[in-house]
């Protein structure tokens, strides 16, 4: 069995994955019904009287009214998805944008996750590097001092479990 688990076989597995992914991502996902289009649009509009639910989710009457408007716009067939979202957002004076724009102070909600992620990855990388350095095999002077201190302690001291 050992010959199976060699690197040429792993390369082959990698190629198979790439091929399958390419086939899967580049093919047509089939026709969308009008209802699918309405669902997709309403998932990007906020319900104006709710706690930040989308019009797709909310059962409030204002959300239902907007869903009906989207249905009318979609059956009219003259506007793209973005245009429909834009026209409704316009009527409601910008109150129904479901995600903050990437401008001004609102962009903080997008920037902060990325900043935190970068810090986290950098922190992990720095920590791993430090450990690899520290585990070079020699005892550091800190370690020697620690061992001496521990050897000098009273083993029956219950406070220091």
């Amino acid at each position, binding site marked *: 069995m050992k010959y199976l688990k060699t690197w040429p076989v792993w390369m082959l597995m990698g190629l198979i994955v790439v091929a399958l992914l390419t086939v899967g991502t580049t093919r047509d996902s089939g026709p969308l019904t009008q209802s699918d289009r309405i669902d997709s649009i309403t998932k990007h509009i906020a319900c104006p*009287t709710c706690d930040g639910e989308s019009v797709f989710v909310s059962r409030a009457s204002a959300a239902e009214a907007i869903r009906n408007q989207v249905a009318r716009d979609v059956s009219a067939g003259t506007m793209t998805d973005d245009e429909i979202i834009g026209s409704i957002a316009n009527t409601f004076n910008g109150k129904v944008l479901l995600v903050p724009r990437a401008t001004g102070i609102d962009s903080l909600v997008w920037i902060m996750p990325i900043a935190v992620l970068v810090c986290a990855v950098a922190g992990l990388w720095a920590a791993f590097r430090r450990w690899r350095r520290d585990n070079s095999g020699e005892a550091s002077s800190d370690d020697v001092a620690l061992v001496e201190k521990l050897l000098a302690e009273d083993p029956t001291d219950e406070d220091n479990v």
Partner: protein
Amino acid sequence: MNRGKNVPYIAGAAGVVLLAFLVVLAMAKPGGSESASSPLLGKPAPIVKSTTIGGGTFDLARRKGSWVVLNFFNSTCVPCRQEHPLLLDFAQEQESSDNAVELYTIVNDDSDGPVQAFFDTNGGDWPAVRDDDGAISVAFGVAKVPESWVIDPNGFVRLRIMGALTKGFLTSRLDELKTQFAGG
């Protein structure tokens, strides 16, 4: 791993941040003004074509020539019920004036029965327009009731009032608008 050193500073920082958050929250003052903005202001009013509860029809375009007030209403909403006497007074004023302003109720998310019952009990004989599918509310961008909209004799939107009316506010603003857009 001498991270233990920094922890008291982190504790202090956390405490300060939370205290600041508390202070900001506590000091948040309610905002709100009487007349609100809308992208429709100064533009032609949306098409409003529907039926009324009394059995007639309503077409906003055919009301050109007079000032029109549209009041978005729901029989269960408390501020709507509270402003109703002011609307009654307003309707009565307009009856005895020349250049009368027409008042219409747009029914938002309610059915004929409760609305008619409300008007029967509390008075008011102006037409109540049905809003099937919520199309009229969406066209004006009305999410919460009550709202009152003023449309000039040429069919342009001139004023949006969000929330319940206060005494005399509607009449005084209308007088301002009439002089501003003299000829109406």
